[in-house]
């Protein structure tokens, strides 16, 4: 991959401190996003994907949260060490974020235009009202909002969820950020609108060359949009692979379980597959692989030590001891389990 990495996360650890002790919600994860790439982070709720995005934005609620290790490099500069003032210049300008709930992401008291223009002027205080308005209308057209000139005088409650999410995307892109973090951008929308928004994000990604970090729990969304996927479980990256690889040849048992639990409309099944057990409470597993208790392939070694990320092939990595075995580990174990 010859493209330049815009955002590099190295050994990031975000810890939450409470009366009952400390819990690493994100446990030493490393990944990078390249220019113009769409990277997805998938995982169940509570696996640390949202905390990852908030850590990058420098918006982890503090206290109780704190980045306790690692670095976040934006074009080579470590923004995790930035002061609040420096971070404000980055937010919205170089890294922007859109949220899950478009219905409540806009201030109900002000018009769409007012809020978009404000977003422009935060980072371009010298722009005149006219220039900012022109930019707001331009970006509204870019995200496919119809009759932008009238819409800027509308209040949020007059817009549908899909339109509000378009406004949020417009607000995020108004200053041409290098990286756009989308935290479950389509979860609150119905399926047809979801498809439109995803298509819009893909288009914008191509046209503006903005790198997108897509956070989701929906594998369907991943398959449709991304180039690369990171699977997170209990605060750790358990698998990282190009999108085709992950669906064709998943290496980690958790990823396999996830893919298996997606309903397939070609076959009629009475019950859907689900991974047995629950996501462990953060901080409850002290040793061994965090997935071991729910894993059908788990063996002794899994209970005593936590596996590192093993290279499977090319850009494919997974955190599983099965990959540590010589030549095609998994099939070995499978045949052993069958006999």
């Amino acid at each position, binding site marked *: 991959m010859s493209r330049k990495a815009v955002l590099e996360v190295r050994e990031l650890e975000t810890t939450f401190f409470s009366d009952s002790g400390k819990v690493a919600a994100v446990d030493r994860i490393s990944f990078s996003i390249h220019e113009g790439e769409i990277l997805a982070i998938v995982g169940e709720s509570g696996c640390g994907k949202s905390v990852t995005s908030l850590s990058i*934005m420098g*918006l982890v609620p503090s*206290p109780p949260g704190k980045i306790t290790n690692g670095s976040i490099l934006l074009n080579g500069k470590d923004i995790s060490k930035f002061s609040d003032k420096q*971070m*404000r*210049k*980055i*937010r*919205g*300008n170089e890294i*922007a*974020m*859109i*949220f*899950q*709930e478009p219905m*409540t*992401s*806009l*201030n*109900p*008291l*002000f*018009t769409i235009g007012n809020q978009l223009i*404000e*977003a422009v002027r*935060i*980072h371009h205080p010298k722009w005149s009202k006219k220039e900012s308005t022109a930019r707001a209308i331009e970006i509204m057209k870019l995200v496919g909002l119809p009759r932008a000139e*009238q819409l800027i*005088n*509308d*209040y949020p409650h*007059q817009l549908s969820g899909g339109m509000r999410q378009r406004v*949020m995307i417009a*607000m*995020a892109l108004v200053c041409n950020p290098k990286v756009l973090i989308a935290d479950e951008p389509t979860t609150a929308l119905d399926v047809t609108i979801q498809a439109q928004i995803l298509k819009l994000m893909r288009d914008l990604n191509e046209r503006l060359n903005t790198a997108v970090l897509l956070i989701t729990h929906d594998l369907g969304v991943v398959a449709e949009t991304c180039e690369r996927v990171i699977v997170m479980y209990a605060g750790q990256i358990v698998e990282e692979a190009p999108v085709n690889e992950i669906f064709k040849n998943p290496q980690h048992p958790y990823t396999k379980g996830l893919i298996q639990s997606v309903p397939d409309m070609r076959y009629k099944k009475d019950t859907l597959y689900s991974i047995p057990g629950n996501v462990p409470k953060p901080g409850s597993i002290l040793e061994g692989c965090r997935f071991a208790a729910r894993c059908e392939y788990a063996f002794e070694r899994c209970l005593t030590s936590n596996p590192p990320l093993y290279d499977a092939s090319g850009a494919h990595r997974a955190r599983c001891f099965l990959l540590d075995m010589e030549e095609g580990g998994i099939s070995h174990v499978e045949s052993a389990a069958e006999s």
Partner: protein
Amino acid sequence: MSEIIRNQVRQIEVEEKVKGPWQEAWTSFKKSKSALVGSAIVIFFVLIAVFGPFIAPQGINEQNLSMRLQPPSAEFWFGTDDLGRDIFSRILHGARISLTVGLTAVLISAVAGSFLGIIAGYYGRWIDTIISRIFDILLAFPSILLAIAIVSILGPSLQNALIAIAVINIPNFGRLIRSRVLSIKEEEYIHAAKAIGMRNTRILWKHILPNSMTPVIVQGTLAIATAIIEAAALGFLGLGAEAPQPEWGKMLADARMFLLNAPWALIFPGLAIMLTVIGFNLMGDGLRDALDPKMKN
């Protein structure tokens, strides 16, 4: 035919587009009869406060000892008091004092309370602890006792009564707005504002303050009524307005000696207080229903 219908539909669309949240509140405020009556009373007293001194038939301190304790008549509409002063004229003048005290005291406490409440709610931690404990201390005393204590320290005068009333009302506003801020700061549009790099002060000013204003407006209107009563109470106790000032509470206190032979000297200032208070209360209730529909009932 269908052309006409289409045109009408278009018109409705156009009309709907201009309505913001404030216009909508106004529309629903207009629908409430009691709110309109309340506002009419308030406007009436405001007009009296502004123009009263010009339309008063007599001077406020014009004594006419031969006309002491006269009952209401064509010459003295509300009768005269023990010094032969025209009660009607004094009430007209008193409206200015009472409304000024009520409005100013509430304005001061609303601004100070909102400021402290927003800081406490938004920044939390030790700032919140300190401000909230101060509110608790102020609320631990019965408010009128606290007002008396403050006036006793500062010395009795109308201005000090105003300060006392402002101080005792600060925690009410502060706690109200603090709780509101606590819920608003978790709203997604606040996170979104942070995510586009907005400064804290700007978030407070632009997003949190306007969204937490409605309960303050409602509470403020109702508090004006209470403040007018409190001012009258302090005046009655001799801790507010001083002797010749035609403050309504003070007039009540002066007239109570002649309750049996000249009840009018007591009834009319009392009525004035009551009407103003009712006016503000009705208006406040109407505002609450209009601005905060969830609080209805």
